[in-house]
């Protein structure tokens, strides 16, 4: 129940896009049609689910103050937390590279459809942001962290597919010239954000 609650909360209330604006650059750039938006959304969700438990274990057993005490009692006062950023980004960058190679080898058709988005994910703030929020929220186990990663990914996917659908619909609308393109996309995202805020305070169980 605890996990279900966290899952729903990370999709709707702590939505990566509307509450924290993470992954905004690719969100605005790749939301011109629903199909590519869906591809990128799936790729981001997948990377969040893969990197979250790795980063969690890294944080818990290597980086936190006193985390190295399982090696020897003398290491108990070692604090490596300042290395967090560089470790997380290394895990994410190498993870993206590995996933790219694996997908290319085992499923060329999926690789062709995701192709260009995979390398872009290394610099998607939603993934690194997920890792940093995970560190801040201090989850009890790697499983909860994975649930959080999955929920955040689904939330991101919902947001980008929704925006892409709206942008397809307004393609022929008569918008004031200076607002065309980016401007109106910002306003739509803002209005979607206000709509998502109505989920605030929902609690299961």
């Amino acid at each position: 129940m605890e996990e279900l609650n966290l899952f729903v909360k990370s999709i709707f209330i702590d939505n990566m896009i509307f509450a924290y604006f993470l992954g905004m650059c690719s969100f605005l750039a790749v939301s011109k049609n629903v199909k590519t938006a869906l591809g990128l959304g799936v790729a981001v969700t997948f990377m969040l689910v893969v990197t979250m438990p790795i980063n969690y274990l890294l944080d818990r057993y290597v980086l936190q103050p006193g985390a190295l005490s399982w090696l020897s009692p003398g290491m108990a006062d070692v604090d490596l937390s300042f290395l967090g950023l560089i470790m997380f980004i290394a895990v994410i960058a190498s993870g993206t590279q590995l996933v790219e190679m694996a997908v290319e080898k085992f499923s060329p058709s999926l690789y062709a459809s995701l192709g260009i988005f995979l390398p872009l994910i290394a610099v998607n703030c939603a993934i690194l942001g997920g890792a940093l929020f995970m560190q801040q929220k201090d989850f009890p186990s790697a499983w909860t962290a994975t649930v959080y990663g999955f929920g955040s990914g689904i939330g991101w996917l919902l947001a980008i597919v929704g925006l892409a659908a709206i942008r397809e619909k307004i393609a022929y609308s008569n918008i004031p010239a200076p607002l065309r393109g980016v401007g109106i996309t910002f306003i739509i995202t803002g209005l979607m954000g206000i709509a998502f805020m109505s989920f605030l305070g929902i609690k299961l169980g």
Partner: protein
Amino acid sequence: MLNKKNKEALFNPLSKDNPVLVQILGICSTLAVTVSLEPAIVMGISVICVLAFSNVIISLIRNTIPTTIRIIVQLVVVAALVIIVQQVLIAYNYEVSKQLSVFIGLIITNCILMGRLEAFALNNKPWPSFLDGIGNGLGYTIILVIVAFFRELLGSGTLLGYQVIPQWCYDHGYENNGLMILPPMALITVACIIWVHRARNTELQEN
């Protein structure tokens, strides 16, 4: 020192080639840290430092980086600089560093950095790269400050923490607009800035 090309690298990003309004880079942090002016200014200065120095470092080693692993090299250089900024902030301005929370760390994945490193520092000498970094950082900071100015003024009636809207306004029924503090209004404020900017620079409008 400042020939025509260098001047362009320094001044173009301020308006005509602004990283936020025109290149649409680095939106995440623009929106998240602009509830009030102080964190916005600190964030802007941090980005200027990291951007200028990472541009210089990458530009110095640009001929020795193999192209296949350049993204990882860039990320490591940027991450090292961001860690320095983060430690300095924790040491000298703990309150603001708490307020900015994860967003200092997220400078690493700020698209302005990767964008400028890829587009400029990899093909140019260190001095123009440094100027390009300063210019783009300033262009980013200007937008951050404008958005934060309106959000703090209308949302809490203060600027940099000082009360600006006098008490008699509240006595006569003026209310702070709570909506301005909420995240979605940052997007709409940026949209209004884009609107004004493109109405003045008609060549930037899209069809």
